């Protein structure tokens, strides 16, 4: 695959480490406790089709990026930094 990195442009997948589907993790001091963490950590997010996921540009800019990729065709339709504060509006 050729993964578009917002910093480095299109780069070979071999430069990246996979980080799994993007999942919202509970606050550490949240009151919802075990159930929330279990749900967050052990949900599959395993669709046939587009999925939003994290990749780490390990042999590049070392950014975590978030892409939307079709798990059947491997078409990538969106790419941005995973850091919500550094995303373009």
């Amino acid at each position: 695959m050729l993964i578009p990195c917002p910093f480095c442009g299109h780069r070979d997948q071999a430069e990246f480490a996979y980080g799994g589907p993007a999942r919202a993790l509970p606050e550490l001091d949240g009151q919802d406790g075990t159930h929330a963490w279990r749900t967050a950590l052990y949900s599959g997010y395993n669709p046939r089709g587009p999925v939003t996921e994290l990749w780490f540009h390990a042999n590049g800019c070392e950014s975590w990026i978030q892409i939307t990729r079709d798990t059947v065709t491997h078409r990538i339709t969106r790419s941005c930094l995973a850091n919500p504060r550094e995303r373009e509006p």
Partner: protein
Amino acid sequence: MTYSAAALLGHAILGNKHWPAILNTPDMRSSYDVVIVGGGGHGLATAHYLAANHGITDVAVIEAAWIGGGNTARNTGIVRSDYLLNSSFRLKNFALGLWNDLSRQLNFNLMYEPRGYVDLAHSDDELERFTLRANAMRLRGAEAEILTGDALLARVPQLDLTGEKRFPVIGALAQEAGGVVRHDAVAWGFARSAASAGIHIIQNCPVTGFEITGGRLSAVRTALGRVACTRALITVAGASTALAEMAGLDLPLNSINVQALVTEPVNPVLDAVVNYNAGLCYASQTSKGEFVLGGATDGYTSYARRGNFGKIEDVLARALQIFPFLSRLRLMRHWAGTADITFDGNAIVGRTEVEGLMINAGWGYSGFKATPAAGWCLAELLGTGTLPELLVPFSLNRFETGSEQDDAGAGPYPWLH
């Protein structure tokens, strides 16, 4: 119709015109005692054991495409039981016992060849961990050996232990009962046996939903119509998430491609199944003479079931470390299967929160070797309603309590298993 050399000759004389079909093309009934969703190795084995062990034959195996067409068809056919965790070991070792006599049980030559499985270690530390595993196997009643130096070379004379290697081979764990099975034949043998007992095997029939009333399963909906049933099993490997979703279940697993390849066939050279650990590559030679090689998963979610050549290059580079002569052979075909890998890398087998609906998923790349054991145990669960002891550690709710069965210790990240 019994298969035998005599039958083969008899039919040959008659021009092979009277061989019966291994399976019929039955019309699907509107209800069954048990519906098995998925006509792969595990589903068909479950059907066989339902009939053979429990006398239950009012069963339909419903397959979206053709029998054995998923990971059974894409398998490298290796069987072994060299696991450290007791839960993994027991299930796979039970399977190994079943493989040993399965051709006779099914009256179908599955070409089980216990050629021996040799797992190579690359440092003293690794060899000590292998020793730990071999000891675990021995103390549980299985056979295992640690081989070093000349003994290893005598066991696998083709191994190249000379020259400068990135990860030199220090020794190996050998399990002589390990070996290979002709993967396609497993599906056919189980299917033939189940069909001859009267079980319906329905191909080209995708399941479209489950009817659940008051938390109980009442019917399975398919492309060919509704089938009433109170007991059903989902056993669809790479498609587990989609099928479980139809029943409102969220399975803790990801579908990830696993690559495999074969070389052109050559005269027999390699007898054992050999595993190279530094980066993972396993190799064996088929009866047809092809070298079959595989490696670790692609490491990201995908249903594409197609080659990822970077991985193939990795696997081949490792293969050349131990068998440099492979550089003279040519790659003939490579492909991928979709492995469903859970958050501890081990299978999910047993009941779900929907009463009557059982799940068999998450086998990752250890599903083939467990086929008869999974079928045996699932048939017991479906047939008697009791969860066999072997399956207890593999419950769906183990992640809630923290009873993970993590052989690799890689944690809740399926892509690292």
